[in-house]
């Protein structure tokens, strides 16, 4: 049987149900803390597919303004980049 689950973070498997469970358990938990507990937004997609989805779900579940949720930082590099390519990049630049 297919379980009734909605994945918000596909890299790190955070489901909507799990998110609700965390929000029920800790009244004042921030999205920064949820990120650190669940690893959500820290996978290979760098949070591009999930970050805003999760923020919106938190706002909806708590019935609060999206701005109050506060998005965790976007971090460099802008796209996943191979260490070897970075290591060689300066040599290529001349």
């Amino acid at each position: 049987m297919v379980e009734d689950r909605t994945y918000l973070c596909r890299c790190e498997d955070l489901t909507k149900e799990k998110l609700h469970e965390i929000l029920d358990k800790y009244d004042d938990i921030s999205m920064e803390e949820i990120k650190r507990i669940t690893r959500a937004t820290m996978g290979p997609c760098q949070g591009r597919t999930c970050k805003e989805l999760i923020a919106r779900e938190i706002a909806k579940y708590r019935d609060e303004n999206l701005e109050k949720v506060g998005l965790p930082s976007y971090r460099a590099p802008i796209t996943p980049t191979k260490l070897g390519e970075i290591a060689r990049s300066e040599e290529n630049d001349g």
Partner: protein
Amino acid sequence: MMDSADVVVIGGGSIGCSVAYNLAKTGVENIVLVEKNFLASGATGRCAAGVRQQWGTRENCLVAKRSIELLKDLSVELDAELDFRQSGYLLIASNEEERDQLETNMELQNSLGIPTKELTLAEAEDLVPYLDTKDAKRAFFCGEDGHLDPFKTTFAYARAAERLGVEINTHTEVTDIVYKNGIEQVVTKRGSISTDLVVNATGPGTKYIGKILNLDHPVEPERHQILITEPLENMLGPMVISFQHNSYIQQVPHGGFIMGYGNPNEPHYVNYKHSWRFLDNMAKKAVQQLPVLEDVRVVRQWAGHYGISPDGQPILGTVPGYDGYYLACGCGKGFMFSPAIGEGMAKLITGKELSIPIEKMSIERFESGELISEPAVV
């Protein structure tokens, strides 16, 4: 928020939460912890998650050893998964000078019961088959060292402390400390707490709390940058530290490779910016040491701080002339030392027999000037 407490702990990182938990466990009541941001939002949550005993001073070795002892049962005690894994630290010496230093350190470690071994390069390659040893002379290994999850550990200490009655207030910045003949009150942006005992557990922020009391604590925030790659199957084993590259590389249990270094010549202030220069240098250091990482992708880089002291050892205990004011600063090793520091501070405050030599780590040592500096910081 409580307006009166027996103890106020400032700082919601690993040390603050460990101190609060251990105080409550020792039987102290009415403990309040205040954190200006969220739990593990500072140095703890930005650190490399390593725990090691291979240090070069007696005090650092003893605090590290006690922490590893406590970590063996900590997840049961706190009733939480902490991802503690003892996969060892491999320290690489690239010249005779480094080798002599690491040999001296090993003799000290062995004399204190820390099972560090000197390895030939062939033995090091057996341990880490992907390691490029062409620039290495010798390696040193302690299999009891390893990895611990900073977030899970800090949250586990905080939740266990709450179960014992500790009140934890995040987003509660300290703005003033009222001191007359002793500590009287801690003033925060969310209200004041009357108390006669304060523990400053703010890591790289230690000196900023000190300034409120007109004290000049010798702890400076030193920026260290770090990056993590996409997760791969477990293939590295130990943390690899190179003194030549001044860097560390570890594969965390989740699979990502975490690596970093700091530049001690930078100006010391709280600076969370990350740089392209770091990414570039770190990538070079990584592929030189572990060429197999060439095709592994970096997903994220960030910066955090060591709170560095002039001798690279923690600053713990009372401050002469300031009744009721305690320091609990790990000085660049706060997270990995947090189990022993929390226990030790609770024992000191409640007058119990000490489990680590806190008297040797008092701030008073900087007055007498008899410093023994830690030689093995990366």
